[in-house]
């Protein structure tokens, strides 16, 4: 089914056409997110442009390099949001893990929504995922969640110094540290040390792409017209 996920992953990032469709359950996290506002994080001046009323105006105000980085982050957020949503729906999670998956899933969906609002028509579309069954049992779920969250931390860190807009940087670091909280939470639930080293290393885009491609979780580039929820793998 999948030929070259690595190549495809890059294609998704280059994909600039989208109707910005997102049908996610409106969650508490989303509500909180829109109250805080992705870019309403105490940044004025440079950020003011980004509060433009229309998505097109907002996206136009973003430096091209930042749009590219935001789309890269959006793909990682799609990946996480779809993963948690599917795990929740599978009904395989119990106890503290089920609770954590609900909370973290709501947050990842809120991140997706915030990026879509920010990027407007420049947002890449959601790829099709196949989580290879890992959302259908607790241990594989937790192991994958640890991997995703540690990956997200390294990915955001790798891009932080490349962002030009201070408003986007302020938002990105606020998400970066939340991904680190998620990583620690999932590690604790999995039964491994939540904070292994004193310094968390960054990872480059090509390193992240290589890791994601090895999972074979991304199986198809986004459909141009079809809107649908993440597919189940079972």
């Amino acid at each position, binding site marked *: 089914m999948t030929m070259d996920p690595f190549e495809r992953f890059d294609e998704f990032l280059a994909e600039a056409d989208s109707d910005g469709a997102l049908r996610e359950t409106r969650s508490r*996290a*989303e509500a*909180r*997110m829109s109250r*805080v506002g*992705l870019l309403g*994080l*105490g*940044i004025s001046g440079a950020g003011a442009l980004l509060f433009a009323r229309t998505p097109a105006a907002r996206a136009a105000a973003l430096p091209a390099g930042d749009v590219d980085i935001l789309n890269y982050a959006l793909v990682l957020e799609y990946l996480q949001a779809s993963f948690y949503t599917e795990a929740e729906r599978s009904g395989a999670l119990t106890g*503290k893990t089920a*609770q*954590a998956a609900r*909370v*973290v899933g*709501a*947050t990842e969906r*809120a*991140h997706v929504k*915030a990026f879509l609002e920010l990027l407007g028509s420049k947002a890449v579309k959601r790829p099709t995922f196949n989580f290879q069954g890992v959302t259908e049992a607790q241990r594989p779920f937790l192991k994958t969640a640890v991997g995703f969250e540690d990956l997200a*931390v390294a990915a955001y*860190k790798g891009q*932080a*110094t490349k962002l030009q807009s*201070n408003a986007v*940087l*302020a*938002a990105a*670091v*606020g*998400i*970066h*540290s*939340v*991904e*680190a*909280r*998620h*990583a*620690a*939470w999932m590690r*604790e*639930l999995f039964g491994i*040390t*939540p*904070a292994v*080293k*004193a*310094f*968390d*290393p*960054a990872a480059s885009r090509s390193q992240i792409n290589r890791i994601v491609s090895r999972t074979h979780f991304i199986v198809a580039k986004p459909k141009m017209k079809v809107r649908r929820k993440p597919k189940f793998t079972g």
Partner: protein
Amino acid sequence: MGAAAALGGLAAVPVVGRLFRLGSANAAPSKAQDIQILQVVMQLEFAQVAFYERALREAGLKGDLREFAQTSLGHEREHLSAIRGALGAKTVARPKMEFGAKTKSPNAFIAAATELEDLAVAGYNGQATNLTKHTLAAAAEIVSVEARHAAWVRAIAGEVAAPDPVDKPITAQEFAQGLRQFGVKS
């Protein structure tokens, strides 16, 4: 020790201001401003080291909580040493600290550790746009570890470990004020 090495690249630049001046430290990033920011951060790391040391002696920590405190203490010592190395001759003296009941029982310790680690995350995040890219890269390697600590102690306590979808930053002034409220005396 990537962050330590990166921080070590800072050149010594005369320090114009102290903590109170940092409230307005939002000029374009510069090495001089990095130093001012790192001086506040150094106070934080001093406070974290002292807090975990004291709690390990006084709070009666056992099991997971003790492991958390010991691991975090090790990390904070490494952070402090990296920042000391970066500041060179511009290091600040170890402040006086009074933690009161915070290190006297497991429950008080959980609440205080959560508060201190959240303060660290918000404080580091709040300076992201004020730092040169060089120092930002190093600070980013530290802040996510502080965030992991915050989530870890919450998870041990059975709380929601990541309550917010995005971490709200605070200004340098709020950061310094938060440290004072926690018990850092200078």
